[in-house]
């Protein structure tokens, strides 16, 4: 479940960055259309990946419940952190991306 939650956070961060109203707040750089498309793709891919990871690790019912919780929880955390500490929100997403392979490895071992 930690991997699925991380992927949710990363996915939402990417989707958030793909919007011009947030991109500049978070990165301080100007927005570009092609980057937006790539971020949107990455975002949705990460969210779908998180669902797949959740389904792979437990029964259907438990997976859907926990995935929904991860989805809602990561969205709330992102919006809260982003609104007060935008750079921190971005850093967390970066850290999340780095930690994903670590947790994936741990989950495969378990």
């Amino acid at each position, binding site marked *: 479940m930690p991997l699925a939650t991380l992927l949710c956070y990363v996915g*939402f961060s990417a989707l958030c960055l793909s*919007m011009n109203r947030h991109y500049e707040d978070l990165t301080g750089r100007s927005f570009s259309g092609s980057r937006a498309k790539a971020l949107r793709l990455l975002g949705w891919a990460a969210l779908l990946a998180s669902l797949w990871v959740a389904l792979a690790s437990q029964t259907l019912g438990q997976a859907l419940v926990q995935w929904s919780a991860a989805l809602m929880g990561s969205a709330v955390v992102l*919006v809260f952190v982003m609104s007060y500490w935008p750079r921190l929100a971005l850093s967390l997403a970066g850290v999340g991306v780095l930690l994903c392979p670590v947790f994936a490895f741990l989950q495969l071992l378990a």
Partner: protein
Amino acid sequence: MKEGFRQVMAWLHTWAGLTFGWLLFAIFLTGTLSYFKNEITQWTQPEIVPHEISAADGVNRAQQWLGENAPDAKRWFIRLPDERSPELGVSWTPAKGRFEERSLDSLTGIPVQARESMGGEFFYRFHFQLQMPYRWGRWLASLAAMVMFVALISGIITHKKIFKEFFTFRPRKGQRTWLDGHNAVAVLVLPFHLMITYSSLVIFMTMIMPLSILTTYGKNTQGFFDDLFPAFKTEPALADRAPLASIAPMFEVAAEKWPGSRVGLITVNNPGSANASVTMTRHGADHIPHEPGTALVFDGVSAELKSESNMGAASLMLAGGLYGLHMGHFAGPLLRWLYFLAGIGGTAMIGTGLVIWLGKRRLKHAKSGVLPFELRLVEMLNVASMSGLMLAVVSFFWANRLLPVSFTGRSDWEVKTFFCVWGVALLHAFARVFLRDGRSAWREQLTLAALLYCALPILDMATAGGYLLASLKQGNLTLMALDMTALATGIFLAWGAFRFRGDGKIVLASKLTPAVQEAR
């Protein structure tokens, strides 16, 4: 045309939200507390200490006590202690008279000597029955649920930029921040809100939408319940008596039939008679759907497995699944806290909505500084239903610690305290809003609430410190967790009270949008 539709939905959302918002705030807050009802009960009855006992020992003690104290009952119910409830719960339907229940000490098997208190059950029952007579309360709560559903959907339709503003929260911008906040807790936690609201309708559906039962089963409505829950069909007791078999060995059969799952409720039908039977259902913590239809029935005299029923049909799993998701019995500690936080989010969604409703209309009267009667009424109800309710909740806990440990009607007095404080808060809100201003009402109630919540851990140490320390020594963090949650709540309320400091003229100016400020 689309704009017209959206406008109508906005109107509907606003008025449905206002008329039922106060009630829904109370339902959501007490419902949210109910996710920790077992833990609240542990706090209100700290005398009951958890013991590590085997299921067999537990049921033996329960069976012995019931055999001695309720031998002529029509039905016994036994609930074993678990990680969230330390007591061995026994209850029974006597041959004559009302349903009775007792908490037994799981180690000694005798009724527990603890202060009488409803504990978490008070908030739980309140959130669906509203302290009203059985049917009336549930109907009103169900009506509120339907209005909530309408408010949610109309809100979604109204929120034009639901995707564009998905991540938007702009702090320190007055009314805009309140609206962003309302949208954030609503949209980001939407799956939970929709689930909670729809499932609450499903939970009471046999009461609020019974006609299909009547058209398919006619007068034999009991037949419907017997078809769903064959294991709970009641039979009148036979005149012949026979000793009840020991229940403990039946657990082994249950363990075989339900690998990885514990037994939840044990029901003994017609104990002591020749046609006695023992019904066992699965423990709620072990699976998501609520399935009382999945049960094992044993012969009460020979202890043999008579029948096994499985509630696996898809339609039943849909209803049972929604029921189970609402109740959250299956949730472990982390998920339970998430349920709690989501519930707080829902409560905040309603609260911010009520504040926004008033705030928007108040701006129109900012220049004259005098609010018309209707808006003052709304303000009074906002204060009483939100900060007033918070005061009432904490008073329940204060009463639990301050009232003498043993006197009859103690439990009723805790409940009376809750409602008296709520009533006084309403009167205070009335006096302040109509004779002075809303700000002072909020400030004073939030300040008092902050003090009471923050002081709760101190009160606990002072009046029941022994139990608190004993529980910590045992490794049980429940009492401490409740105290700490109260403290955190108190700090939050103190911050709220701080925001209402002063007379508001300076703060109001900053709350006006830049456009209005320019126009001035």
